[in-house]
């Protein structure tokens, strides 16, 4: 078990109240997580003591800032079990990471008639880049269907991989249903045919141990703000084998080796992919988030949040007229649900009045909602600072919602 009182003290926002004086019950962790003082103070401390541009600075601040920045790259490497620091590219977030792959890998490796395979539960960030790439290249986008339980069928993965398939892209954990996808199996199947796999890890990193080496994925993208770190920073892991083939994504300072007016040659990896001044403070803050997660332990975090989320799914399912949307065998920290006759936005607004923050809508998975024939869901998502008491508060509030509409 975690020492919850201690942990909650690390997150100052958890003592916020809403306008009616109701205490915040933050259950919107899938949208963004809260930040511990350790992260907030690291960012302040960076600006107060070490702020400088990096890589080219000879002065002591430049040296300090560069060290903090590059040490975080090592931390990230170790955190996700990558082999090389070169494989760690700092980006704005999951969305930019996937766009980078779609642009750089996509432009060289996808051509007319090729196929890209994704699942039907992907976040728009792991759907639209591939959809638009396919349109542009006259390639095809294939969709692995999602069962009413919110799961994919591993046989369908096999059968939908063709000789023309050039990439498989799949979310580690579904942000709208909570499904933990069988990414290891998908990767094995794809690799048997020599096809690289991109994993959208936005909902996994920070909630469970993730090891890109044992997963053997080829691309892995995640966001700092969803793992208790700062907004504006994320990571794209690219396996060395693909990295060296990829052309730069953006052009500018820090990513070149040599330039004339006519042409440019590009810097070593990974700097080639980090054009311009990066979010230095964001990177340093991300490092603090990793340290913080280590200090609690990711195995513990996984056990605790999955238990909490199962408790939530079970408890909410006892409410009359409430359906849990997605009943996967393996569930992350997310539970989606709907009332028969009450719109998710009305649910969320009434909960908001009670200080409970959940999300309502299509959760950037519109086509999934269309395929399930629902306009959206209410979604509650936990983190390790939540507890069963908060779930009970949610439960009571949802019963009150029902009463208002009856």
């Amino acid at each position, binding site marked *: 078990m975690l020492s919850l009182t201690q942990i909650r003290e690390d997150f100052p926002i958890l003592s916020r109240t809403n306008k009616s004086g109701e205490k915040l019950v933050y259950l919107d962790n899938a949208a963004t997580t809260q930040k511990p003082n350790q992260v907030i103070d690291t960012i302040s401390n960076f600006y107060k003591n070490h702020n400088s541009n990096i890589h080219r600075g000879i002065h002591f601040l430049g040296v300090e800032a560069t060290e903090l920045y590059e040490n975080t790259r090592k931390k990230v490497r170790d955190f996700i079990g990558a082999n090389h620091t070169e494989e760690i590219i700092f980006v704005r977030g999951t969305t930019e990471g996937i766009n980078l792959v779609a642009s750089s890998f996509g432009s060289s490796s996808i051509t007319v008639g090729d196929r890209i395979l994704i699942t039907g539960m992907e976040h728009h960030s792991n759907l639209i880049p591939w959809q638009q790439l396919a349109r542009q290249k006259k390639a095809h986008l294939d969709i692995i269907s999602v069962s009413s339980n919110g799961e994919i069928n591993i046989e369908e993965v096999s059968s939908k991989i063709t000789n023309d398939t050039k990439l498989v892209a799949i979310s580690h954990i579904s942000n709208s249903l909570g499904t933990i996808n069988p990414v290891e199996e998908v990767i094995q199947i794809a690799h048997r045919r020599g096809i690289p796999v991109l994993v959208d890890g936005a909902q996994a990193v920070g909630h469970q141990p993730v090891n890109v080496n044992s997963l053997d994925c080829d691309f892995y993208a995640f966001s700092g703000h969803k793992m208790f770190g700062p907004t504006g920073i994320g990571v794209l892991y690219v396996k060395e084998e693909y990295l060296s083939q990829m052309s730069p994504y953006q052009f500018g300072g820090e990513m070149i080796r040599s330039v004339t007016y006519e042409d440019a040659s590009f810097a070593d990896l990974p700097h080639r992919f980090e054009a311009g001044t990066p979010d230095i403070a964001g990177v340093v803050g991300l490092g603090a988030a990793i340290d913080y997660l280590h200090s609690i332990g990711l195995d513990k975090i996984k056990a605790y949040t999955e238990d909490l989320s199962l408790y939530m799914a079970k408890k909410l399912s006892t409410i009359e007229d409430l359906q849990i949307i997605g009943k996967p065998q393996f569930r992350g920290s997310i539970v989606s649900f709907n009332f028969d006759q*009450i719109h998710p*936005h009305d649910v969320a*607004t*009434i909960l908001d*009045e009670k200080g409970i923050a959940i999300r309502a809508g299509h959760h950037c998975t519109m086509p999934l909602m269309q395929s399930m024939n629902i*306009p959206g869901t209410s979604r509650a998502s936990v983190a390790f600072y939540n507890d069963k008491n908060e779930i009970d508060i949610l439960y009571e509030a949802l019963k009150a919602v029902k009463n*208002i*509409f009856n």
Partner: protein
Amino acid sequence: MSDNLKSLYHEVILKHNSDPQNFKKREDAKYIIEAYNPVCGDQFKLYFDLDGNTISNLSFHGYGCAISKSSASILTTLLNGKKVEEFININDLFNNVLSGKPLNDKIPEELLAFTPVIAHPGRIKCVTLGWDSLTEFLNSEK
């Protein structure tokens, strides 16, 4: 139930939500316009004719939250058979109310049920969804 909740989901809203007025498709309507809120996914159609300057046979159909649905329902009850100028006038008054301006003129009482939504800026668009579409249509027709 707290007072806040009572006032936010006022009984007027709840009534129009569970029993929306003029809630029907009419494919032979002279005008069919869409009211879509990409943020929420709320999606209604407004059906009506224009006889000269008069809005007639106004109905709506579609899917949305209690707030957008009840607001659209009230829109149809208030404005069927009214002149375009009357719609514009009421719409202006309504927008004033929703932006928190002091109320000088008379406004149909049902609309005051939506004032607590002011405290939830993310939901204002739900209140005005049907109204905005009709305004936009009328502006484009000028």
